């Protein structure tokens, strides 16, 4: 059995984990007609539960991490997100079939009918409250809240991890400096979420589940939520060990693991390796290539993409310049994380712009 675990540890690396999750995401969108069938979905559920039981039984390391009290909610989160993804996609698929046949969505059949809130809504709330309360009570009776030794600044645990819901941000710190990963990107996530209703001008798909009527809204949102948030939390919990080094999910966390740190700045790539003339002393001249790349990415790329891709041109006409500009800016910054990941994995790229003099590293 441990051969299987070793094989999984061997295959899973940050880059392969990311590729697998992107493939999974693509398959989820592409084959939504298939996996939303209740029979098929139940099979996926059993396979996943079986896999977790298998992991728990055969890997004491995985069991130790998975049963840490504060990691238990992660399973609730993963299965909650999984179930409700199924529920929303199931209803979207059913509605899309109906819409394709010229029928209104299922919700329309009962949306004109009004019911009395007492009792038709109040009893649902009442029952949900009771079930929620009972679940919380049982959870609290069965599992102690964690309490470690008293706080001391004298001993730093390794790894030191943020609370689980921030592990996606902590994972970003591998690829970007704290001013971006810890401050600018979170701020932009919040602003970007707030901007959604003002950017999405598609009048369809309001008040019912659908995919086909608004794929350009759903795919980026879910990519951000699933790939850049939920899977990174999972990775941060189970695959980041001492020194924030990457470990397979069943691999013991060796605090002495040696990782080659041979990351190179873009400036060094260009000035030293390609031009062979050494780094200029002036920081602006030294980082000129990085500034050009970033400038092109944020200023040159949007018009170029808009010109070349017909879909984007349509979008520009629909949204107007301001909305389209904001959308492009937010999308490019969202893409900046996976792009930097790939650059790191393929080229060992450390900083595109690296000016440690001013703490300005990108």
């Amino acid at each position: 059995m441990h051969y299987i675990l070793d094989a999984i540890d061997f295959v899973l690396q940050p880059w392969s984990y990311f590729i697998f999750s992107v493939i999974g995401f693509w398959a989820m969108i592409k084959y939504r007609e298939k996996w939303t069938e209740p029979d098929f979905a139940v099979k996926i559920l059993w396979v996943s539960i079986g896999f977790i039981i298998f992991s728990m039984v055969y890997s004491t390391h995985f069991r130790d991490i998975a049963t840490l009290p504060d990691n238990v909610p992660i399973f609730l989160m993963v299965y909650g997100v999984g179930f409700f993804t199924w529920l929303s996609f199931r209803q979207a698929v059913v509605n899309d079939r109906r819409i394709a046949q010229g029928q209104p969505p299922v919700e329309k059949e009962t949306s004109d009918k009004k019911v009395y809130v007492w009792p038709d809504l109040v009893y649902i709330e009442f029952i949900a409250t009771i079930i929620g309360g009972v679940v919380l009570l049982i959870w609290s009776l069965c599992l102690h809240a964690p309490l470690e030794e008293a706080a001391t600044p004298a001993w730093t645990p390794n790894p030191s991890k943020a609370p689980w819901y921030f592990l996606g941000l902590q994972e970003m710190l591998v690829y970007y400096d704290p001013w971006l990963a810890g401050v600018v990107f979170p701020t932009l996530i919040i602003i970007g979420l707030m901007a959604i209703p003002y950017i999405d001008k598609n009048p369809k798909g309001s008040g019912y589940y659908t995919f086909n009527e608004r794929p350009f809204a759903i795919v980026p949102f879910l990519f951000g939520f699933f790939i850049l948030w939920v899977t990174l939390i999972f990775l941060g919990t189970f695959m980041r060990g001492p020194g924030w080094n990457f470990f397979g999910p069943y691999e013991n966390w060796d605090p002495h693991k040696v990782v080659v740190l041979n990351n190179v700045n873009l400036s060094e790539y260009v000035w030293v390796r390609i031009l062979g003339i050494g780094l200029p002393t002036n920081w602006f001249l030294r980082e000129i290539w990085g500034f050009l790349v970033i400038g092109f990415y944020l200023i040159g790329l949007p018009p170029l993409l808009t010109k070349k891709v017909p879909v984007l041109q349509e979008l520009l006409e629909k949204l107007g310049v301001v909305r389209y500009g904001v959308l492009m800016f937010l999308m490019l910054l969202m893409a900046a994380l996976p792009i930097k990941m790939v650059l790191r994995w393929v080229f060992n790229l450390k900083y595109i712009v690296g000016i440690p003099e001013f703490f300005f590293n990108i």
Partner: protein
Amino acid sequence: MLDKLKKMIAEKFADAPSPEAIKQNIAEGQIWKSIFRHGYPDTPRNRVMAVLSNVFLHLHPVKARHSGVKMSYTWCMGGLSFFLFLNLTVTGILLMFYYRPTAEYAYYDIVALREHVPLGIMREIHRWGAHAMVIAVWLHMFRVFMTGSYKPPREFNWVIGVVLLVLTLLLSFTGYLLPWDQLAMWAITVGTNMARATPFMGYEGPGASMIQIGGVHLVHGGSDIHFALLGGHFVSEATLIRFYVLHCVFVPIVAATLMAVHFWRVRKDGGISGPL
């Protein structure tokens, strides 16, 4: 013997009112009528009155779209988030009876809470409820997105919802420090280290060195946003009292206020969304 007793009781209470009559009496008495100003809610009029004449229920409209009250549509996640918030408020107040936010007592008060308080699962309910609330809020947002419920006229309520999401995470994060154990201290250390790198406002952030008067730096380790957040250079007792006040007073008040706005706007923007 038993038959005799039964007979005696029957005789004694022969002219006592029936249970129905007692019920009738109570329901028409002054006390009952002063509390509930309507009859049993089984007629349309009384159902309307049940919602309208109750301060808590009147958050709701009198009638709602049938499609909008279904669990498959709403997942009940917004309601559960609110339920968990109430739960956390109640258990949080109970925890405040036992907890002193000082470096000297905080950890041992938590130990005492676990070891000495009979049936003490208040901290468990509070902690797991907090985790559950984070998840419930995410799922609520997920549902609202998937049903396109942020679309006009509900744009602004989505914005308030995003703020509430951030406040939920902040509530959970500030509460994370309070047990004052190693888990708490270092999670908060990791989580707040980033503040040092805030552009212009953290001393390790880009642009901070530009803010100076006559060569004197205004943003340094003892004056930046990281210092303001922690009340010191690192997580210490000053941080504990700051996070305690934020967690127990400031953030809950802001969140509760915005929740009121959020719920009110649901009504004003046309109730739970549905197809046009």
